[in-house]
């Protein structure tokens, strides 16, 4: 199986302080990977690095045969202006950007795909509703419909099931499984350890530094989870230069 993403001694962070420290590893194409770790472990930071919103402090990410526009990203706290006067239909239609671009029409095929995507997330009948009227769960369903239309090879989901009810997360996870079945690479941050053990084949346990990476059952042991919690120390304003880098220099 070919690699979709390769991390080489990747360090990501803010203002020189690392939030993801010395990550090495490879995500194979078609993998369904859970990224697990305490709050502040660097999960969101890693995702921003993967989608190219945050340049690495050191090391790098290689995308093998995956163009930047082949990566779709659902951030944890999307910066959506919910009061904006736009309908669910138009919002989902944004997912066709790659096909339609700045000026292209959507066409009959596009309209069909939009309706299909809206139906897949169970929002049929909501097409004309303003996004301001959606509940949190409906909002997340709508964003999944948009992701469906983006038709990306790599899909990055930052805590997609936080703050949605069981029915919604089950429905949305069906879509994730469908993506996995279609050989797409799906990387998702999750908090429910039992859920990950039961449903996701591969896990990266992160606590700034990678704690373990491999088959979910082997990674998510009690010892590893305890270790992860301890390693997530606070941001130190007076931290010295990273020893690894000093030695390397």
């Amino acid at each position, binding site marked *: 199986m070919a690699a979709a993403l390769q991390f080489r001694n990747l360090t990501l962070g803010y203002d020189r302080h690392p939030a993801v420290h010395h990550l090495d590893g490879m995500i194979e194409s078609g993998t369904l990977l859970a990224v697990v770790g305490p709050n502040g472990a660097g999960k969101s930071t890693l995702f921003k690095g993967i989608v190219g*919103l945050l340049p690495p402090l050191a090391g790098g990410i290689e995308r093998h045969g995956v163009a930047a526009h082949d990566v779709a990203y659902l951030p944890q706290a999307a910066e959506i202006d919910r009061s904006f*006067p*736009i309908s669910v239909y138009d919002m989902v239609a944004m997912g066709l950007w790659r096909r339609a*671009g700045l000026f292209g029409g959507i066409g009959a095929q596009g309209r069909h795909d939009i309706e299909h995507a809206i139906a897949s997330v169970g929002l049929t009948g909501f097409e004309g509703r303003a996004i301001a009227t959606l509940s949190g769960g409906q909002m997340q369903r709508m964003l999944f419909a948009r992701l469906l239309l983006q038709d990306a090879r790599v899909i990055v989901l930052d805590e997609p099931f936080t703050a949605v009810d069981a029915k919604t997360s089950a429905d949305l996870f069906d879509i994730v499984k469908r993506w996995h079945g279609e050989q797409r690479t799906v990387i998702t941050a999750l908090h429910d350890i039992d859920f990950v053990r039961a449903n996701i084949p591969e896990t990266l346990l992160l606590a700034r530094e990678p704690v373990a990476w491999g088959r979910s059952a082997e990674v998510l042991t009690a010892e590893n989870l305890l270790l992860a919690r301890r390693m997530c120390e606070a941001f130190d304003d007076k931290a010295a230069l990273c020893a690894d880098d000093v030695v390397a220099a």
Partner: protein
Amino acid sequence: MYDLLIAPFSEFEFMRRALVGTMALAVGAGPIGVFLMLRRMSLVGDAMAHAILPGAAIGFLVSGLSLFAMTAGGLIAGCVVAFLAGLVARVTELKEDASLATFYLLSLALGVTIVSLKGTNIDLLHVLFGSVLALDDQTLILIAGNATITLAVLALIYRPLVIECVDPGFMRSVSAAGAPAHLAFLTLVVINLVSGFHALGTLLAVGIMMLPAAIARFWARDITVMILIAAVAGMVSGYAGLLLSYHSGVPSGPAIILVAGMLYIASLLFGHVGGLVRQLFPGKHLEA
């Protein structure tokens, strides 16, 4: 009725010119105002209106009441202030609103100083309150040309502009078109204020931009409908304001804005979408 509503325009050419000018202005400024409002930048129009003053004043100082010089000066000053404010906001800790405030105040002080160095009070009044009743061919062409450019550019950047407003994170993740679209939009704001100040003056130019947008917010839930309503509301205000000015003798620029203000208050009270009367007397709740 004819005497009241139509005669002023059929009898006097200057009234016809004023009508054409305000119509063109409303068509361009309305949609811009809607985007400013939705981006929570309503006061940016006001700040930019002040910012173009020194440019227009320098143009005036150099070549008197020359349309070209004052327009070019206004455009340059507006774009410089918009650019500097954006730059400072990006490079330093100062937020965009604060840095815009500093530059527009500087710009305004500079403008008033320049005007007072040479001009008489009458000239200053012309710059501040415009002269919708004295639009010559050149000015009309400028205003109509600006409205045309505005609509054409808006059509070009409409998609990225809307997406950037609703979901900037998504826009960044699919395309780099967001930032250029935003810049083009700011330029359109400046262009419309410059054409507005010939007709209504710098202080009121922003009124024909923001009041119709605020009116539209109370009548539509969809941005395309909102843009249409804003343009129509601007045109109605222009027409009714000119009539008010003709029959009562009040200055035309303020009259247009006052009419727009009355439409706004009516919308605020009786608007379909979130109007006060609807909020106070919502009626019985529905079944589902």
